[in-house]
């Protein structure tokens, strides 16, 4: 602990969101600094790199208006910590934890480092508890469980927003319990944000949101999800609540990461994204989970918009390697008027096996899901043949499979804005299978 806070005027260079400071005595990695601009504004920043007496600082909130002569920097001798406590509930903050709802800042009960610490793998409890989202394609075929991280892979123009919005209103635990929602908007337009705002208002005090809009500082886009996840961990593992974290849109996050990485002159990897993007994304996604000792949980539902509808693009690709599955939306289904346009074939929930069946959903769940998958996959394969020879030129059996694939899309996948309980979902599945067998006779 330093006794006196020293102010430095020795800024030597400013590059993008980065600031170089000379002749600094004893800085710490990750230390929080206060920056006073020539026109009297206060900004905060974080120490990224120290080389002898030169320090590299990442500035939160943009470097517009900073200069090398009159900008002063003071060191706080502490890493950035997040204020925590129950006062956080029902509030809206920006990407640097300033209230956006015209209310005063709450009084923190205590503070935790913004990066958190990894959960010890032996302390983790394997996620098994079923969460009902109200969507048949998720509940029935790609089941979400408590403590899972399951992204929605969308394409531009598809209704991922509507789906996310419905999930945040509809998600229920099997015991009927509710979630506390942590909502993180990253690089959203005002138009999109207005849309979510209505739903958030319905949540009353069961939510916290962190809003970084498209015209807000890029550096805060990297900070906002970390603030949100630290809050989520506190709600889950100290106050033992079940927390659902919705982050939209991770593509904007990754682009911000690329922007900052380029400013730091790091080596670019695939498509210009930094080589450490996997580890960086993992440091966010891996904060989801449950532990043996505590009752709470963090369930993570990020949205990723696939650039050029390409699932092999680095952003969805790296995300898919870290998360426990993915829900993939399809432009083709959307054009057929199907909502939600979930393409179940490339979709997957890795934790489904333990979250379904007796005690969680229903005994027949696994068989029904396998049956639907297999039959629908066959039907989809035959569509290519249909395109060549036409439906009339096909065998009766094959026509039957094609019909099934169509019915599956219109009756099972498509559900409009209606919420389906897991029983509704499984009954619909059973009906489709029965009808399919009926025609066979």
């Amino acid at each position, binding site marked *: 602990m330093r006794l006196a806070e020293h102010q430095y005027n020795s800024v030597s260079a400013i590059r993008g969101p980065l600031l170089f400071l000379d002749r600094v005595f*004893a800085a710490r*990695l*990750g230390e929080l600094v206060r920056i006073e601009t020539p026109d009297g504004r206060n900004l905060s920043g974080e120490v990224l790199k120290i080389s002898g007496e030169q320090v590299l600082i990442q500035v939160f909130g943009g470097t517009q208006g900073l200069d090398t002569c009159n900008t002063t920097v003071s060191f706080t001798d502490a890493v950035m910590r997040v204020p925590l406590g129950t006062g956080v509930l029902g509030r809206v903050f920006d990407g640097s934890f300033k209230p956006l709802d015209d209310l005063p800042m709450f009084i923190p009960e205590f503070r935790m480092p913004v990066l958190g610490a990894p959960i010890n793998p032996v302390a983790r409890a394997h996620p098994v508890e079923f969460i009902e989202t109200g969507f048949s394609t998720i509940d029935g075929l790609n089941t979400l469980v408590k403590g899972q991280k399951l992204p929605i892979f969308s394409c531009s123009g598809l209704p991922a927003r509507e789906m996310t919005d419905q999930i945040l209103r509809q998600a229920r635990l099997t015991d009927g319990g509710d979630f506390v929602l942590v909502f993180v908007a990253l690089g959203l337009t005002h138009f999109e944000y207005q849309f979510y705002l209505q739903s958030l208002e319905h949540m009353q005090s069961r939510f916290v949101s962190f809003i970084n809009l498209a015209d807000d500082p890029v550096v805060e886009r990297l900070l906002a999800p970390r603030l949100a996840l630290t809050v989520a961990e506190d709600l889950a593992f100290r106050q033992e609540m079940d927390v659902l974290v919705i982050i939209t849109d991770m593509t904007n996050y990754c682009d911000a990461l690329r922007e900052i990485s380029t400013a730091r002159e790091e*080596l670019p990897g695939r498509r210009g994204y930094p080589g450490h993007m996997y580890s960086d994304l993992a440091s966010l996604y*891996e904060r989801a989970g449950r532990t043996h000792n*505590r009752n709470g949980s963090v369930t993570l539902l990020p949205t990723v918009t696939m650039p050029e509808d390409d699932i092999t693009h680095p952003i969805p*690709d790296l995300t898919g390697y*870290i998360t426990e599955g993915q829900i993939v939306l399809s432009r083709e289904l959307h054009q057929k008027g199907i909502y939600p346009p979930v393409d179940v074939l490339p979709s997957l929930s890795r934790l489904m096996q333990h979250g379904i069946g007796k005690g969680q959903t229903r005994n027949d769940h696994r068989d029904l899901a396998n049956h639907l998958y297999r039959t629908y996959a066959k039907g989809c394969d035959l569509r290519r043949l249909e395109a060549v020879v036409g439906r009339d030129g096909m065998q009766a059996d094959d026509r039957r499979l094609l019909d099934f694939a169509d019915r599956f899309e219109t009756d099972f996948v498509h559900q409009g804005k209606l919420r389906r309980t897991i029983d509704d979902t499984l009954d619909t599945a059973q009906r489709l299978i029965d009808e399919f067998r009926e025609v066979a006779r």
Partner: protein
Amino acid sequence: MNGKVTRISGATVCVDLPDLKIGDRVFVGISRLTGEVVRLEGRIATVQVFEDNRGLGIGEPVSTTQGPLLVRLGPGLLGGVFDGLQRPLHKLQEDSGDFISSGQDPFPLDCSRSWDFSSECKVGTVLGTGAAFGRVREGHIDHLLLSPRDGTLARLNTGELQLEQPAAHFEDDQPLLGWHSWPVRKARPVRRKLPPVTPLVTGQRCLDFLFPMLKGGVSIVPGGFGTGKTVLEQTIAKFADVDVVVYVGCGERGNEMAGLLDEFNQLQDPRSDRPLMERTIIVANTSNMPVAARESSIFTAVTMAEYYRDMGLDVLFLADSLSRWAEALREISAALEEMPGEDGFPTYLGSRLSGFIERAGVVETLNGASGSLSMILAVSPPGADFAEPVTQACLRVAGALYLLDTQLAHRRHFPAINWTQSYSLYSDTALAHFTEQHEEWARLQSRCRNILQREESLREVAEVVGMEGLQDADRLLMRTAEKIRLEFLCQNSFTKDAFATPQSTLEQITKLVDEHERISAGLKEGAMLDDLLMEDGNAPG
């Protein structure tokens, strides 16, 4: 010896401390974070820090042990769960709670536990390096205690012993403990390497029958996300016919590790009827744990694997995934500002990888026994593009390729092993072995391959003309191929079907191929396919 921190850039730290060697372990800062020297320039050493170093300040003290990073080897490793630096995770949880904090260094072995030590040696026995001086019982295995140096025994204390109590003394009064340490990055010596000859039964029909693995062999399992790499690795870890399994979760998901631990604690090893965990060592360095420790995790794990191999045991090493290790190498290399090679990976990726993979093999140990270390390594190519550097570098040294196919996975065909592109260079050796036991093995294997290949070419035709446009013989072949795919190659890892003995594998394929030959013979005599299928009690396909 003390020095201080002069430069910090992420986890790469420069320290001013003379007389260091490359690979030396240093303690960095007030919280004594573990680091390893990776570069020397005059007095200044560049240190890779293995723990989260936020809050580390310029001028903080640095000290060294004057030796490399070590793995501690002794009885009690089996059943353990460690991080990439061999810190015991259960002990860490007791000490610091559910979240891992920096600067902790608990001893990986349990020194309070007593072992019943017995020995065939006598006072005056001359021991060579690596010779056994006694044994303890660890779970189902006879754990040989190996001497880390040579010398003549002067005293011997058999009976109940704890690890820190000397089991014996040399004539120069140096004690022999139940444990010793070994540098993380140094392969343990052997008398010589032997060619692998015995099949390693994985319990996966597709692998054992079409692409067999040998004890002492190396296979790689590349696959895009969602193709079932982890499930395949874990299923093999459960059922493979080896004595010891070392499983490394290298930069993968925490929840998967939790699931693995749950299962391994509950499941029984079918061969010894004891909990599976008793033959398993788990190294878990999940994706959000420090990157440098991820890089060292495979070396920590393989050293433990070699230690058990040196007792003359068959050890299987599974890593999930090697790509995450290579990425850690890339991140460290970038932080050192080295010249990048392909895709940003350092140019020494290939040599580092082959150095590691060559630690597998069948060996004659220093103790004169024969032991084996086999490796099955998952690879996660970006965008499921197998032309990328890590897959390619692995292919140059691996003996078998189990390629996981995204298309098969989407159809829920698991294990999604692509049977046209996968291969095993061990096939001939394994075949000789299997044919000794079941003479039909070779014939059935080539017939099965043949049917699957024919299906591939017929499928294109069928897509144009439809199934009924095919001749009866071809329709039959398509039907058999489908049955082989669905009933034989598919294997559900979550049911009893997860493990198949070579005997049952053979019976199943015999049934399918025989039925095919029988109906095929009928067709040659001029019968119609649909009639033959009816006779056989099958619906027309």
